[in-house]
């Protein structure tokens, strides 16, 4: 079965991980990755409230009022997981102990900048832990729909919104293609079924190059 849309994004991202990786997944599509992990790949999911080894949301009859995630939602800790002090959970992030994070975004650009925390004068929920992830995690994967609801490219030459992190994004995965960020330019690595390089040029504001074989996204 070939995945499309958000499923394809999540499935592709899942293939970045190897067994035992320590990762931080944003809510939404990023967290969907866990549904597509290859056989034999188990991840340690970090929740910034201090959980190492976040588990599934339990049935409501089993909610523990003392186990909540960063969004104050009921959650669980896997067998072998632990609960650490809050400052340490950001020590993991800033200190480079997290192998990869997957973030959704409003904008991302060819210099590896990402803007996903506010729209001046309109929406300003705050950055929460996102800036720390951008500053501290070695591999910052952006998982996003290629265009916004109006059809405009979310992958830009230069972000226009206030940045969450500068020069930090390493990989961009959309439902149409997969780019890597290489010293301030994008390289197209894979195409989703049904898309051509020209299709991607037509819907992408950022400049990108093709360097070597282009794979099929799956």
């Amino acid at each position, binding site marked *: 079965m070939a995945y499309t849309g958000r499923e394809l994004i999540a499935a592709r991202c899942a293939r970045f991980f190897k067994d035992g990786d320590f990762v931080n997944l944003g809510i939404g599509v990023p967290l969907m990755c866990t549904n597509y992990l290859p056989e034999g790949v188990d991840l340690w999911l970090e929740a910034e409230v201090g959980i190492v080894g976040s588990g599934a949301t339990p049935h*409501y009859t089993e909610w523990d009022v*003392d186990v909540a995630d960063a*969004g104050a939602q009921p959650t669980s800790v896997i067998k072998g997981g632990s609960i650490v*002090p809050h400052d340490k959970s950001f020590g993991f992030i800033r200190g480079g102990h997290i192998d990869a994070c997957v973030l959704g975004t409003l904008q991302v650009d060819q210099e590896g900048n990402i803007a996903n925390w506010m729209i001046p004068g309109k929406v300003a929920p*705050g950055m929460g832990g996102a800036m720390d992830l951008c500053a501290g995690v070695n591999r910052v994967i952006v998982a996003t729909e290629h265009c916004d609801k109006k059809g405009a490219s979310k992958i830009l030459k230069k972000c226009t919104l206030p940045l969450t*992190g500068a020069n930090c994004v390493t990989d961009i995965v959309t439902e149409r293609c997969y780019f890597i960020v290489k010293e301030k330019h994008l390289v197209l690595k894979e195409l989703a079924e049904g898309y051509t390089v020209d299709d991607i040029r037509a819907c992408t504001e950022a400049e990108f190059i093709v360097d070597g074989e282009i794979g099929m996204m799956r």
Partner: protein
Amino acid sequence: MKNKIYTLEQVLAKIHDGQRILFSDRHGQLAADEIIEGMLQKGVKDITAIAITSGQPGMGLGRLIEEKRVKRVETTHIGLNPATSQQMFAGEIEVEFIPQGTFAERIRAGGYGLGGILTPTGVGTIVEKGKEILHLRGKDYLLEMPIRADIALLRASKADKAGNLYFRKTNLLCQDYMAMAADLVIVEVEELVEIGELDPEQIHVPAPIVDMLYIRQGEKRPMHLNWQRMIEKIKSKEAEKR
């Protein structure tokens, strides 16, 4: 031994207009709810609230914000409490957004006697505005200043009569370092136990750091208001299916 158990009135006598207060609150959960209710009744206002998030409607710090008792918030996230955004855009409340890891380190620095810390978080973003940037070993760091407060207002799962505190599971959150960074540490306690009942290795905040214990009069560990709402939704969906 020093008595550390106080009534709500005794606790409220220490809380005044204009103070800087560290709140244990996480999106309205983990808050010292009965003391906050007392603050509302007493009419405490012009508070500077320092909290990881700014509460939710009808929950924790959110209530003080809805009632316009807070003039400034130093926080990482206000997304779950619409009142904060509304007041911010209306110029009625001042909001300083702090990246969450920096929030932890600044309060810890305030409590641990550090003059500041250098962090890579926020370099190249608007967070660096007005801050000194140090270039060390090939990398830029922001110099971030300590945060302290007049009061830390916490919510413990257990306390013993000496004042030792234990926070169950994710209730620990910011509470250990917040206890270190205030002139006065006031704790709303779910369960009071005898001295010696807490395992020495289990104590998150040792007794000498804690000033006042207030024992909750209501339910010890009530279901969170937002979870109650979620459960109602799930149940009504389940009912529809049948």
